[in-house]
C-alpha cells in the first residue's frame, strides 16, 4: 500500500499566505482585501511587499465582497480574506448578485472553516459553506487538504477566469502532498490504490482518510483513497471509475452531510452507477467550543470514524 509522509505539521492558511505572496511577485493584477483579520489570514507578507495592492476594508465583509466585484472591472484579480463564515453566509447575496451572477473574477479565500477553528465555537464554525457556495451557478468550490496544496491552489486560481471559493483551515495539520505538485482545478488526486472500498475525502479529512486506509490495511481491507479538492466542478469520472472497481464508497468532509461533498458524490453515483455510500460528515448540527481534536472526535470526523464507515459500507455491498 502506498503511504505518505508528513513533512511536518503546518496550517493550510499559511499555505494561502505563501501562495498570495508569490502571486504578489508574479502577477501585477492580483490585489488583496481583508476585513480586520490580516494576521489570521497570513496576509502580512503580501501587504508588506505590495501595500498599494492591499485594501483594508475594516469589519465590513459585505462591503468587501462588492468592492472586490468592482475591482475586477478594470482587470484586477481580487483575493478576499476572512473567516469562512464571514466569507459566505454573512455575505451571500453580495456574492450571489455582484460576483456569481455578474460572473466576476473574484477569489473568495476563506480560512478557519469547519470545526477545527476550535474554541471560538459555533458562531464562527461554519459547516454549511460548501453547500452555500456550490449552489451558486458558475462558482468553483475548492477545499484544500494541506499547506502545499493550499499554496498551489492559491496560485492556480489566479489563472482561472471566474469566481472561486477557496476553503482552508486554522490548525497545523499534516503536510504530505509533494511540494512541487501542480494544482489542477477539478482533477481529483488518486492517493492510494485499493479494491474493497473507495474513500473520497476533502480538506482536513484527506489525511484522516490516509490514516484510515492504513488501519484498514492492517485488518486486511484494501481501501482506495481519492482527494477531491475540487467539489465543484466534481471529477465524476474519478469517482465512477473507482467505485466500478470497489463497489462501495465513503465520503469524508468537515461539513454538514446536508449540502456537502457527500451529496454531490451521491448525485453523480445515483445517476451513473448507484453504489452503497456512507457519509463521514456532521449530522445537521452546529459545532461548539473545544480543541480541534476533541471536536473532530465528538462529531465523528477522524480516521476512526472513516474506518467504521468503511466497515459498514462494505457489508452493504
Amino acid at each position, binding site marked *: 500500500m502506498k503511504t505518505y509522509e508528513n513533512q511536518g505539521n503546518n496550517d493550510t492558511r499559511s499555505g494561502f499566505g505563501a501562495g498570495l505572496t508569490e502571486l504578489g511577485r508574479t502577477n501585477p493584477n492580483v490585489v488583496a482585501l*481583508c476585513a*480586520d*483579520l*490580516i*494576521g*489570521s489570514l497570513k496576509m502580512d507578507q503580501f501587504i508588506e511587499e505590495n501595500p498599494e495592492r492591499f485594501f*483594508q*476594508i*475594516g*469589519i*465590513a465583509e*459585505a*462591503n468587501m465582497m462588492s468592492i472586490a466585484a468592482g475591482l475586477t472591472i478594470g482587470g484586477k484579480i481580487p483575493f478576499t480574506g476572512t473567516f469562512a*463564515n*464571514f466569507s459566505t453566509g*454573512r455575505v451571500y447575496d453580495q456574492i450571489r448578485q455582484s460576483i456569481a451572477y455578474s460572473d466576476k473574477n473574484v477569489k473568495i479565500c476563506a480560512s478557519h472553516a469547519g470545526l477545527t477553528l*476550535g*474554541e*471560538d*465555537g*459555533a*458562531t*464562527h464554525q461554519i459547516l454549511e459553506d460548501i453547500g452555500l457556495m456550490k449552489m451558486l451557478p458558475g462558482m468553483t468550490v475548492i477545499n484544500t487538504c494541506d499547506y502545499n496544496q493550499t499554496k498551489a491552489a492559491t496560485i492556480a486560481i489566479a489563472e482561472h477566469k471566474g469566481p472561486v471559493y477557496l476553503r482552508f483551515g486554522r490548525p497545523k495539520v499534516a503536510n504530505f502532498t509533494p511540494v512541487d505538485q501542480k494544482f489542477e482545478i477539478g482533477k481529483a488526486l488518486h492517493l492510494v490504490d485499493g479494491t474493497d472500498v473507495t474513500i473520497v475525502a476533502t480538506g482536513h479529512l484527506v489525511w484522516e482518510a490516509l490514516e484510515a486506509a492504513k488501519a484498514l490495511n492492517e485488518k486486511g481491507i484494501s481501501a482506495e483513497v481519492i482527494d477531491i479538492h475540487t467539489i465543484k466542478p466534481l471529477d465524476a469520472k474519478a469517482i465512477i471509475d473507482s467505485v466500478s472497481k470497489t463497489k462501495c464508497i465513503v465520503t469524508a468532509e468537515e461539513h454538514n452531510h446536508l449540502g456537502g461533498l457527500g451529496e454531490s458524490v451521491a448525485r453523480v453515483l445515483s445517476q451513473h452507477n448507484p453504489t452503497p455510500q456512507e457519509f463521514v460528515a456532521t449530522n445537521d448540527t*452546529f459545532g*461548539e*467550543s*473545544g*480543541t480541534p481534536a*476533541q*471536536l473532530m472526535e*465528538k462529531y465523528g470526523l477522524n480516521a476512526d470514524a472513516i474506518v467504521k464507515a468503511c466497515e459498514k459500507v462494505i457489508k452493504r455491498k
Partner: protein
Amino acid sequence: MANTQQLEDITTQVRRDILRMVHKVNSGHPGGSLGCAEFFVSLYNEIMDRKEGFDMDGIGEDLFFLSNGHISPVYYSVLARVGYFPIEELNTFRLLNSRLQGHPTTHEGLPGIRIASGSLGQGLSVALGAAQAKKLNGCNHLIYSLHGDGELQEGQNWEAIMYAAGKNVDNIIATIDLNGQQIDGSTDTVLPMGSIKDKFEAFGWTVLEIEKGNNIDAILKGMAEAKSLTGKGKPVCVLLKTVMGNGIDFMMHTHAWHGKAPNDEQLAIGLAQNPETLGDY
C-alpha cells in the same frame, strides 16, 4: 445599593476571573473584556433593574444584549458573580460540552443569555426588536446593549441606527465601547470612522459621552443621566471611552491582547496587580 469601593472590589475579582479563564484554555479575548469590566459590574449590580432568576422573555425587568460577543469572559464572570449560574462553572470556559461557549449562545441554555453573538454587527438590531417587544407588551423597562467601536464598521449597525431614530425607539440605551482598538490595530489605522458622536447625532440619536469609562462613579453618573433621557422620542447612545486591557499594566492601551491569552508568568503578574477580593472560583 453597593458603594463605589464594593463595586471596585467586584471589578478586581472580575479581572482575575477574566485572566484565569482565558489563561486556562489559552484562548479568548481579555483586552476588550478588561476594558469593559467596570461597565459590566456597574450595569448588573446597580444600573439595571433585574428580577431574580432568569426567563427568556424578561418582562418586568431591564434587559442587556452583548453585540461584541467576543468579550464573553467579562460577561460570564459578571453573570456568575451576580448569581445567574455557579461561579465554579467559569472553570469550563471554552471547554468541550460547556455552557460557556467561546462566544455567548442560547444553544446550551446558559442563564442570562438571550441571543447568540460573535458574528459582529447584529446585536443592535436584536436589541431594537426586544425594545419594540417591550413597548408592545406595555413593559416600561429598558433595553441596554453594548457594541465595539470596530464593530461599528459593519453596515448593519447603520441600518439599525437609522431605524431606531426613524421609529422613535426611545427605550434603548446603546453603549459603544470606544477603546480605539480592533484586531489589526487602532480603529484609525484600520478604517478611520471620524466622529462617532456626530454620526449618531446626524442619525437622530441623543448622544452622551462618558470620558472616564473605567471609572465607576463616572459610569454610574453617566448611565443615570442616559436613563433620564429615555422615553423622550429618541434612542440614546452612550460613548464609553475605555482603555483596552484596563487594570493589567502590560495589556493596556494596545490591541495586542484583543484575542490573546497570557502565559503563566504574565498571568502571575496580572493577578498580583489584582489581589483576590470576593474569592476566586
